[in-house]
């Protein structure tokens, strides 16, 4: 049953992505000042949002683990963090490409970009920290606490664009810029596609964690007998 859900969601995500790609490249007109490259925003922004959703899920899973001591939640935390890290990397890379074409620079240390990079480093640190702890209970516990600390950084990313003058363009989809409803709709659909993709990847990774734990416990019983 689990497998069917994964396949089902996967197909849905693929179909949606295909439809969106068609829409992005074939149907929507070029943007007034940016030309072709603006289309990258349909991946850049949804990837960021997906990454944030992953971070939120990981934080909730971490807190739940600390409360219930159930390793299922620890597995969710690590799985969803890995997936989120991938999406955040996609966000940084797409942003960098866009910046190179439009502004002529690969990188700048403004607040938004810095915070996104910091988040990436933090969650990469989470994975590194887990790697350094062999004992599974300690690994889950220490990881969960660290995840909570890391997540507290995320609001800074979210609000920074409102608080500081920054080189980053003002939010396109919020903040009262004028935008073609067709573009808004496409972005929203792509967000859905990326979120579905994230869910599929997380479920696959989660399944792997659970299988690993099952093997571990079988080995434990074998030792004990």
């Amino acid at each position, binding site marked *: 049953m689990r497998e069917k859900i994964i396949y089902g969601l996967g197909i849905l995500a693929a179909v949606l992505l295909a439809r969106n790609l068609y829409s992005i490249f074939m149907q929507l007109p070029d943007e007034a000042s940016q030309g072709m490259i603006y289309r990258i925003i349909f991946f850049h922004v949804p990837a960021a949002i997906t990454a944030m959703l992953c971070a939120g899920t990981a934080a909730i899973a971490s807190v739940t683990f600390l409360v219930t001591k159930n390793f299922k939640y620890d597995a969710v935390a690590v799985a969803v963090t890995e997936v989120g890290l991938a999406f955040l990397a996609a966000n940084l890379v797409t942003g960098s490409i866009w910046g190179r074409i439009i502004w002529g620079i690969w990188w700048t240390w403004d607040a938004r970009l*810095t*915070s996104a990079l910091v988040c990436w480093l933090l969650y990469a640190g989470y994975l*590194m*920290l887990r790697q*350094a*702890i062999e004992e599974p209970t300690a690994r889950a516990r220490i990881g969960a*606490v660290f995840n909570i600390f890391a997540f*507290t950084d995320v609001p800074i990313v979210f609000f920074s664009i409102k*608080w500081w003058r920054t080189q980053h363009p003002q939010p396109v989809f919020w903040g009262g810029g004028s935008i073609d409803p067709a573009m808004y709709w496409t972005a929203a659909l792509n967000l859905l596609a990326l979120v579905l993709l994230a869910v599929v990847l997380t479920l696959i990774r989660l399944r792997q964690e659970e299988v690993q734990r099952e093997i571990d416990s079988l080995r434990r019983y074998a030792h004990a007998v």
Partner: protein
Amino acid sequence: MDFIRQVLVITRKDLRAELRTKEAINASLAFALVILVLFSFAFDPTADQTREMSGGLLWIVFAFAGTLVLNRSFARELPNDCLDALVAAPISGGALFLGKALANFVLVMAVELVSLPVFGIFYNVHWTSRFWSLLLVLALGTWGLTVIGTIFSALTVNIRLRELMAPLLVYPMLIPALMSAMQLTMDLIAGKPLGGDNEIWLRLLVAFDVIFTALSLLLLETVLVG
């Protein structure tokens, strides 16, 4: 009141132990002064350049030198298994955390207060024009540095490669606080007052301090025992 008493017992213990050996604080102070001098020597900045980079330079120095003190915070409990005795003692995790954080704060502030005049001399900078505001920013920034350094010292106390791990994890966490402190310090050294443009940084720094202090107080027990 019990809580405060317990905090101070821990603080006194840490300070007494550190001042007796002076290992961490000597290393930290030496590091800070050497970097400051080397930088001045290597880049020989003009007055304008110095003013621009004062905030950044000072807080990088403080962060790196501070880490030398902060990493030892829980590591010093490992010889003789003293950490066991602290965990077994009837004090709350919050009291243990705050006690250590306070001791660390005192030590790192001491290093910073010695570094500032040295900075002033070698870079020909008049940094005392907004002295009390600067002291406030120093305290707030150092507290942020201390809180994160202390809790992460606890997080990594039993991990192999602890010496490498802790700094790697701490610096990204500190970036918002360091950014704020750098901006404020740069403005204050240039003679601008607090408030107006840079008030937002001050608020961020205070929020950072409050949030992470609260989180650390709550979670230390979980980190050490489960």
